């Protein structure tokens, strides 16, 4: 962890120096922060791109068919998740029920 400059610690002194120190620190945080966020996410873009290329080249795979993930995702936030297990059970039960019903 970065140790805080002495002047930021006594903000209660409220001298002009302290104020300038605080402002300077704030600007530093903004520049370093935004810089770092961009740097990190740019690195992540390249890493992700590299990862995808690598996977597609060396471990090609049938992609999930009919994927429209965003819509699925926005629903899954609302609805409880144990969806797929649920549905498979339901389908089993329905199949059974329909067979019974047919054979009546």
């Amino acid at each position: 962890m970065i140790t805080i400059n002495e002047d930021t610690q006594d903000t209660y002194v409220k001298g002009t120096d302290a104020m300038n120190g605080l402002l300077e620190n704030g600007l530093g945080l903004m520049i370093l922060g935004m810089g770092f966020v961009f740097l990190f996410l740019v690195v992540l873009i390249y890493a992700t791109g590299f990862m995808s290329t690598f996977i597609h080249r060396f471990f090609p795979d049938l992609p999930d068919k009919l994927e429209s993930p965003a819509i699925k995702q926005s629903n899954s936030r609302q609805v409880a998740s144990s969806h797929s297990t649920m549905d498979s059970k339901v389908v089993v039960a329905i199949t059974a029920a329909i067979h019974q019903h047919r054979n009546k």
Partner: protein
Amino acid sequence: MEDKLLTLYHDTGIYQLEFGQFVMICIGLLLVYLAIKKGFEPLLLLPIGIGAVLVNIPGAGFMAAPVYDAQGHMTTPGGLQYYIYHGGIETGLFPLIIFMGVGAMTDFGPMLANPKTLLLGAAAQFGIFATVIGAVLLGTSGLMDFSLADAAAIGIIGGADGPTAIFVASRLAPELLGAIAVAAYSYMALVPLIQPPIMRALTSKEERSIKMEQLRPVSKKEKIIFPIVVTLLVAMFLPSAAPLLGMFCFGNLMRECGVVERLSDTAQNALINIVTIFLGLGVGSKLSSEAFLNIETLGILSLGLIAFSIGTASGVLMAKLMNKMSSHPINPLIGAAGVSAVPMAARVANKVGLEANKHNFLLMHAMGPNVAGVIGSAVAAGVMLSYVGS
């Protein structure tokens, strides 16, 4: 007998209630009202509101510390919110567990189909840092008493991400936690009101009508590897963001790997629900009159609104820039989704897009910057924790 009656009367809230407590109970009820009637992030604002009501009941002792005798035996137990706050929020456990659950609910597919949208998630974090400057200026102006740590914690409201805001505030400015959490969740709920005017002001109708290309399908393997890649990058570049992003990616890995469905299911349901209830009550416990009823809270609420607005604007402007530079068309509206506020901001982008062109569905494309914004604000949080110390 009469003296007992008198002491019983002295125990009542009527006798003990201070004006500040009365106001805070009203504010708690307002939050409950907004949660139920207006649908403002009810999963959090309802428990926070009730927590605020309970902690301000005079003599109920919800935040009372336990008392021990010299041998270490408890003579008086503490209050419920005391244990919740010190056990789960001060330690950072609850926000991290919630972040794990959110990770287990998040689908990175749309982002992986178009990784460049990560830039939008980066740009929208400008709201965070601009707000830090705002808070610092208020601090230096002498109007309000904000240290650099306070300013950083206030800025994180602009991240539009509840658990991140609570985690950072609990470390940098615990006394502001209540106001920061309330501001963060309230503005997240207000995204449909705050964002559209800014989005319309910064874009032309043609831009808003831009159709984007269908996203490529994303393979299961990419989705599995991605959270590991993020964790490793965080480990390399920004360990102070590792608690947040490590747990987020752990949750996402449980979701995508396909072999621990029962854990993923629990992380998304029972566990996150339990922790949400307690997190809300714990955050509410910081809504005491001393901590909330002061000029700083006004500053926090205003700065939070500014943070959301600047974040939205910078996301949209970055998307405009990318649209100009890129060979593939990019609708600037999806930039606004970069503030996070998942999935509300993506829906807003979709809705504003539909106004311009009723056949233009942007939801899928906006989910990419939207989840990128979660990563972006967690990275910003890490920088702040590292820069300001704790």
